[in-house]
């Protein structure tokens, strides 16, 4: 492992694979030889259909599952070591929290697990509860929380030790539209603060808004990866962004383009949406799978 890549990457996986044994003879491939890197201070979107291996990837990265093959590193440290998780926050796919604790107690509990205590911890708990908008419910037990409220408490708990890296598995699932926008804005704010974020989501509009790079998983394999802007740029078309030309000069150039056989379609940014790209890629993948 060369030093350059291990210090500038927040997450790095090499041939990371996970097979689940579901019965004596059958096994399910959760993840198949995944190689990918999330750089520091990047927002990375992990996309894919249900059961494609997104949550499995996150659990492997956290050392919750033992890989069948390959390895994962966090900030250059093998995820087998507990130290690799010192500066990581995790929002699980489902609210795996204690029903008998109140919202406040939950955040405090996870803060203590990160070694926090005293005034600093109490201030942080209040700050986070306010941030996720649960002040009115902070003393209620989680057993009585709604889906969206649980999601919010999950987010607060993930951020309790102010981690450098956040692994968010569907942070907006079950959250109302306003909460959803708040979470999007929060992710952008966290990026400005220099955090790294790995985001799994099915809300493609939102992913397009916040992610620098995306990867699409299918059947446990990475089938497309790259810079969001680059991926969404249509290479068969070309766009000039011009400043300071007069109306007359523009129409002159327009005529010239026509003379050379070009055709001006429209002005503005010629991008497809991530949604279209996603659907297209996944359909291709399905075709490939059927072809095997």
């Amino acid at each position: 492992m060369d030093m350059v890549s291990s210090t500038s990457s927040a997450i790095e996986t090499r041939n990371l694979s996970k097979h689940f044994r579901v019965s004596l003879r059958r096994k399910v491939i959760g993840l198949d030889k995944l190689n990918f890197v999330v750089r520091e201070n990047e927002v990375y979107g992990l996309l894919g259909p249900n059961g494609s291996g997104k949550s499995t990837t996150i659990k492997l990265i956290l050392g919750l599952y033992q890989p069948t093959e390959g390895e994962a590193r966090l900030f250059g440290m093998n995820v087998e070591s507990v130290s690799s998780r010192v500066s990581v926050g995790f929002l699980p796919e489902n609210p795996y929290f204690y029903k008998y604790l109140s919202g406040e107690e939950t955040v405090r509990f996870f803060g203590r697990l990160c070694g926090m205590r005293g005034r600093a911890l109490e201030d942080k708990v209040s700050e986070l509860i306010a941030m996720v908008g649960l002040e009115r419910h902070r003393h209620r037990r989680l057993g009585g929380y709604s889906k969206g409220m649980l999601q919010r408490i999950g987010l607060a708990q993930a951020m309790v030790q102010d981690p450098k890296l956040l692994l968010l598995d569907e942070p907006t699932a079950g959250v109302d539209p306003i909460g959803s926008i708040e979470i999007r804005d929060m992710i952008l704010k966290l990026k400005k603060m220099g955090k790294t974020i790995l985001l799994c989501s099915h809300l493609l509009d939102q992913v397009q808004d916040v992610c620098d790079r995306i990867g699409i998983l299918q059947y446990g394999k990475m089938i497309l990866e790259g810079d969001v802007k680059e991926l969404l740029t249509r290479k068969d078309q070309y766009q000039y962004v011009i400043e300071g030309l007069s109306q007359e000069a523009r129409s002159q150039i327009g005529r010239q383009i026509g003379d050379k056989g070009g055709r001006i379609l429209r002005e503005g940014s010629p991008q497809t949406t991530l949604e279209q790209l996603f659907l297209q890629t996944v359909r291709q993948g399905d075709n490939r799978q059927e072809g095997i």
Partner: protein
Amino acid sequence: MSGSQRHFFSFYRLWTIAANTMTEIVRQKFFYILLLFGVIVLILSLFLLEFSHLDRVKFIKDFNLAAIAFFGALITIVGTAELLPLELENRTIYPILAKPVFRLEFLLGKFTGMISLLLLTLLLMSVIFAALLFYTETQLLADAMAGRGLAEGVTVDEAVRQVKAQVRDAQLFKAILLIYFKLVIVCAVGILIATFATSVVFNVICTSIIYICGHLVTTARAEWMSNQTVSSKPMLGILVFFIPDLDAFNIADALVLGQSVSWELVFQTIRYGFFYTGVILLVAHFIFDSKEI
């Protein structure tokens, strides 16, 4: 490198998990119900007396020590059986281990939480026990002062001294201490079973069987030493060497019979308890550490 601060085992994290485990058990119904039953049974001993012609103090001691041991064991076995399976089934262990928490901290945290709660439970029951004893003492003293029920040739002073000696018995403390350490072993055994079995009912049954066998070990050992029949020898051997000798922790019978047990023996038994618990937890750690959660 920025994230390379070394990270070691921490008692603060262990205690955080332990305290949370206590909250978990205390906020469950079964604990209240068992505790309530235990307390009722203790208090019942006063009323059973009306029907008993046995020596009152002796009866209260015998009955209460047995009740404390019984309800303590019940709470331990049921409480411990749930600790790990619930965490794994509800996957509440995921966000915990996603924080920088060692699995050993988690395991020992669960164990510590359970034995701390047991300590509090036993303290509560002991306080009630003591209250019952002192209540009986005042009654007996009043009787003695009034000269009621005095045996032939016994002065009032002597009778008072006898009552006090019988009630204020430091040996009782030893008995309860040993009950506690016996439950600590049972708790460790329960945790060990839960590291590889996922069903609460199975854990309860297994731990109960070991608990019962643990009281037969002394007898079994004597049998094993003397018995010549080959067929039962291996089975007894397993019983003798792997099952903890819980009977060694039971000094209540001796005490009620008026025999005294030396501190030396008490400490020796506690040392055995520590050793056995340590070994069991070590094995549990190795299983749990490599377990796929």
